């Protein structure tokens, strides 16, 4: 299982990476924004994408649309502070697979990630 982990906060990437490691997922490529993420997506084959929304250079919604133009089936999970219904609807319309709102509890993050990576490890 290879994961593309996208968040401009190194702290948030560390939190998610440790959770993935506990689920025995260790093949993780990190990106700080949508531009880096899209370059990584074109250079590697991933099984799942975890992405923040608000990031510099290219935001997560734009990244989601770009990836969906290249791959319609890969699971893309947005992990973001964007909680308003209108924003979630935008992500759904763009093809998001699942959604987790920050702040989250450790159990909430683990349950969400386990649902998507658990069957592959």
């Amino acid at each position, binding site marked *: 299982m290879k994961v593309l982990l996208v968040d*401009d*906060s*190194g*702290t*948030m990437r*560390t*939190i998610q990476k*440790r959770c993935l490691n506990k689920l025995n997922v260790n093949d993780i490529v990190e990106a700080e924004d949508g531009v880096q993420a899209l370059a990584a997506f074109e250079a590697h084959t991933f099984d799942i994408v975890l992405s923040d929304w*608000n*990031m*510099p250079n290219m935001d997560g919604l734009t990244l989601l649309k770009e990836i969906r133009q290249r791959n319609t089936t890969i699971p893309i999970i947005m992990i*973001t*502070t*964007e*909680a*308003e*219904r*209108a924003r979630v609807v935008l992500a759904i319309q763009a093809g998001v697979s699942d959604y987790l709102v*920050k*702040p*989250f*509890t450790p159990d909430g993050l683990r349950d969400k990630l386990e649902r998507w990576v658990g069957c592959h490890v």
Partner: protein
Amino acid sequence: MSAVVTASATSRMTAEYVNPVIAATRTVFSTMLNATATRTGLSLRSDPSEVSQPSSGVSAVIGLSGQAAGTLVLNLTSSTAIEILHRLVGAEVTQVNSEVCDAVGEVTNMIAGHAKAQLAKYSLLISIPNVVSGDDHTVHFPSNVIPMVLSFDSDLGPFTIEVGFSNLPVK
């Protein structure tokens, strides 16, 4: 009479955005930091000279735009900021560094994001947080904004949040 009406409307609008910020702060501290944040004070920086009072420690600034324009500033002592990084990822550091600033920025991002979800009718967008640190730094609000100052105490130490909007419409 009109002055009373104006004051009343101002109070209502202030409560409308201050209460979501207080609730968001408590939620983020309890959920992400396993800490309790208790509000210890609420004041209005009515004296313009107070707006430029220098702060020490770490300040994270987030802009809000949309049908209203505002600014939210989280200011922490250095020790509180260091403890935030420790609570989030377990890192042990002795002074404020880029990791500490990143952690404070992310906590501020979550507070602003959670608060704006309660203000959905204003269709707000939040900026990427900017973080400044050091003694005697100053965060300036726009000249037409008188921010509310929310003081908190917590398991991690004391902190303040300043928040102000320049054109919150009546809805």
